């Protein structure tokens, strides 16, 4: 990919199409909220899982195609992506479990 002076416009338009379609699907699901996906699921609803996965798909296309990560040297890309992914996963793991604990502990004390 991407020698200097070479144009990548075709790839750019394809990625725009992908991002647009994914966003449209997300919004459509967000408006319709089919009961089968919204009210059932593992951990959280299936709908939320779909949203999260589609978001990561979009993030992948933005980072790889628009930010040219796919054209960088493999270990430069890994230095960026692995670092961020590892730290963010760790943070979310700790913080969300704590949030769940706070709910279990404090929710029974809330007077409605």
């Amino acid at each position: 990919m991407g020698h200097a002076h070479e144009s990548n416009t075709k790839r750019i338009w394809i990625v725009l199409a992908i991002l647009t379609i994914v966003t449209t699907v997300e919004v459509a699901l967000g408006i319709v909220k089919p009961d089968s996906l919204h009210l059932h699921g593992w951990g959280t609803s299936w709908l939320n899982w779909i949203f999260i996965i589609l978001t990561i798909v979009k993030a992948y296309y933005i980072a790889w195609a628009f930010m040219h990560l796919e054209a960088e040297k493999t270990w430069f890309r890994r230095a960026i992506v692995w670092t961020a992914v590892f730290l963010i996963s760790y943070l979310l793991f700790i913080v969300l479990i704590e949030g769940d604990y706070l709910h279990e502990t404090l929710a029974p004390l809330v007077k409605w």
Partner: protein
Amino acid sequence: MGANIAVNSDNKETWGGGGAKPFGASYGKMMMWFFIVSDALTFSGFLAAYGLTRFKFIDSWPIADEVFTHFPGLHGVHAPMYYVALMTFILIVSSVTMVLAVDAGHQMKQKKVAWYMFATIIFGIIFVGSQAWEWKNFINGSYGAVKTSNNHILQFVKDGHQVALADFIHTDRKDDRIHHTRNNGLWFDQEPAISQYSVAQVKEAFKADPSLLIRTEQLNPETKQKIILSREESLAKLPLITKVVEGANLKENEYGNPIFADFFFFITGFHGFHVISGILINIIIFFNVVLGTYERRGHYEMVEKVGLYWHFVDLVWVFVFTFFYLV
């Protein structure tokens, strides 16, 4: 893999690493990437804090598509998500024009770079303007609600749909309460805007209309909808009402938990601040392109670097969009 990198070989760039290019990336580009990683961690910290708070109040968190329901020109129409979807699309398109500018830069097409940069700036401004409009709607609110003595928000429902205070309160205010400004009271003092209706008015109007019900902040885990009380339960809640809440600020909001609005203001505000900085940097680079700075330098790497920042802003929005509006 000399991809996308063009650097002079006349040793004029010694300040930027002296031609040493670990991973084949120039000094500036690598530092931009490291900044982006650290900024990504900042945003992750905010979104994780949002997640923690949301998990903590998972049984009563506001439902996003009942909060963000406006679309320009469609007054009173329930249009959840459409506007923010449009904003998302605008930002994605601005990313595309940015990447097209970078692409044109690789081919040393000055005019094309300038036009694509210009388009990126315009789309960026449209996005920030949209965000301001979204904030305006959020701050002004659309229905109005009341707060109880134990700091919960109660909303009003008629025939299964939320109704605005103005829809069922038709009497005049009887407590003669007026907004204290510098002109009509103590000259050295003033108060924030007061609510349009008094608590007594709300109670009176609620009792007068038997079809009105109260909706609590609590979610029914079966249906994932807010719990609507029966008429008897609703009437029993009336004595608890202490305040009328219209719209949103950092202390209270008509949508529910105050911290929901706090996170909304803080995270979308921080993102909006990034967009504004991005626009300013884009404008500077745009003028450099027009003045031919990069044409003389022999490469358009600055466009590429500012492009990385701009795409990052788009990348963050993708996550903000998911976690504030969809999930």
